[in-house]
């Protein structure tokens, strides 16, 4: 069986759709907590709604990945970089799941009703507890910054593959000409 050199169309669609959503979430997050303007109210509602949409999309995406797998990285990519690529991807998946759960959990522990755009109500996933609220809120904020740093690193790496290594890794996610110049690792 030959492994494809590209992510499936569904995987690529999910990647780019979620990339837009997650970047939007990070910007909405830091924007909303630093304003007292009327836009604060719709921003927070959007933040919660989009955040939970990301949770659902991430679960679908992981299921798709388990079924479709991933294209191999180029054989000439040094092993430490292969490892860094794998670990950073796992970390990105972990954050896509953890951030919405922390958000939902902290709102529950803070005794806030979780109301989404369109008036949808979600049940509390934790009982009210000020100590747990503080813990989860702190984690949500620090991990948000770690998430953004990792996304920046990931974008730098993606562009490094596209512009400098030109090894087909970028195209495996972007579409366009498949890798044919470098033989894939087995």
């Amino acid at each position, binding site marked *: 069986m030959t492994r494809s050199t590209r992510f499936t169309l569904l995987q690529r669609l999910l990647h780019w759709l979620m990339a837009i959503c997650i970047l939007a979430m*990070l*910007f909405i997050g*830091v*924007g909303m*907590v*630093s*304003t*007292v*303007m*009327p*836009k*604060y*109210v719709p921003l*927070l509602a959007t933040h919660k709604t989009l955040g939970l949409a990301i949770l659902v999309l991430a679960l679908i995406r992981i299921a798709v990945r388990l079924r479709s797998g991933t294209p191999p990285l180029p054989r000439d990519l040094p092993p430490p970089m292969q490892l860094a690529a794998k670990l950073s991807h796992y970390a990105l998946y972990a954050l896509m799941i953890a951030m919405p759960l922390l958000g939902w959990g902290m709102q529950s522990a*803070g*005794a*806030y*009703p979780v*109301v989404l755009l369109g*008036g949808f*109500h979600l*049940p509390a996933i934790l009982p*009210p507890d*000020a*100590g747990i*609220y*503080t813990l989860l*809120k*702190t984690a949500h904020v620090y991990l948000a910054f770690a998430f*953004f740093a990792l996304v*920046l690193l990931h*974008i*730098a790496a993606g*562009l*490094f593959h596209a*512009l*400098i290594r*030109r090894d087909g890794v970028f195209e495996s996610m972007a579409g366009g000409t498949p890798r044919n*110049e*470098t033989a894939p690792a087995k």
Partner: protein
Amino acid sequence: MAQPSPGPKLASLALIAAVIAAGAGAFAYTAGWFSPDRLTPARLVQAIAPAGGPALGHRRNHAKGICFTGAFEANGNGAELSKAQVFVSGTYPVVGRFNFSTPDPNAADATSRVRGMGLQITTPDGQVWRSAMISPPFFPVATPEAFYALLQASASKAPDAMKSFAAAHPEIAAFGAWAASAPWTASYAEDTYNGLNAFLFIDKSGAAHAVRWSLRPQAAVAPIDHDALAKLGPDHLEQEIAERVGQAPQKWTLVVMLANPGDPTADPSKAWPADRKSVEAGTLVVDKVEAERDGPCRDINFDPTILPDGITVSDDPFPAARSAAYRHSFNLRTAEEKNYPRSDAAQQGTQP
């Protein structure tokens, strides 16, 4: 594969660096790190703190207060204005908090002209309505920015700070006149609590009605003067309400006022004329009072933008600013629990 020459390679590296720097810069800009003058929730809350710093573990404003529980008995009249279940005839559980405006949880009762009530009503459909209301019939200033300026002017040592504030914000004069002339009461049960901010009630047909609401006491009001209140002691209000509710439940009527077209909805410093149509939507019954330290209101944020389906914010800029500030205050105080321990924790601390 052709090895790219170092020139384009450097250009590519520079491009990557530029993309990352632009991303990081846009993020920092959005977060306000380049905008030291942006009015943030943190600055707004900071401005309330007294010179000696805030009281850790406590609400950053309306810090002195006492919890209550009870019920809201809806009579069904509000259902023509809002589809929220809370207006359907029925009885819904309530958690609330009597309080007055001060950053000091130990302030004496007679030091504050502004008393308040935090209120949460929960309905069986899972919806929650929170509100925080005060006793004056209008707010001292027209905008959140003006409120920030007022806090700064009151804290300022410059001799004419308040004078120049009043010149720039003439609406403050009406509040000054109210504060100087309105009678005091010696009981939380005898005060009216006004929502002041305008909200939209959405009815079953989807039509929006601009409203403000008030809770009017059913108890007889016995006005007293400031000095007589001061003589009753620094904590009279909490002692009195606990005793009074212990003897009989205390009641307020929820009155919903409707704006006429053209009435100001974005400015809580302007009361609507008294002849506006109003609807009595039900009765708040308070039947239990508990100290805040271990009480059910302690870790609730009475954020005025927490609304059931059937009520939304209007063009009034205050609820959003208050929501942002209350969230920040809530974050601070819940993280400072050790500075205001619950009594079980305090006892464990004293018994080794």
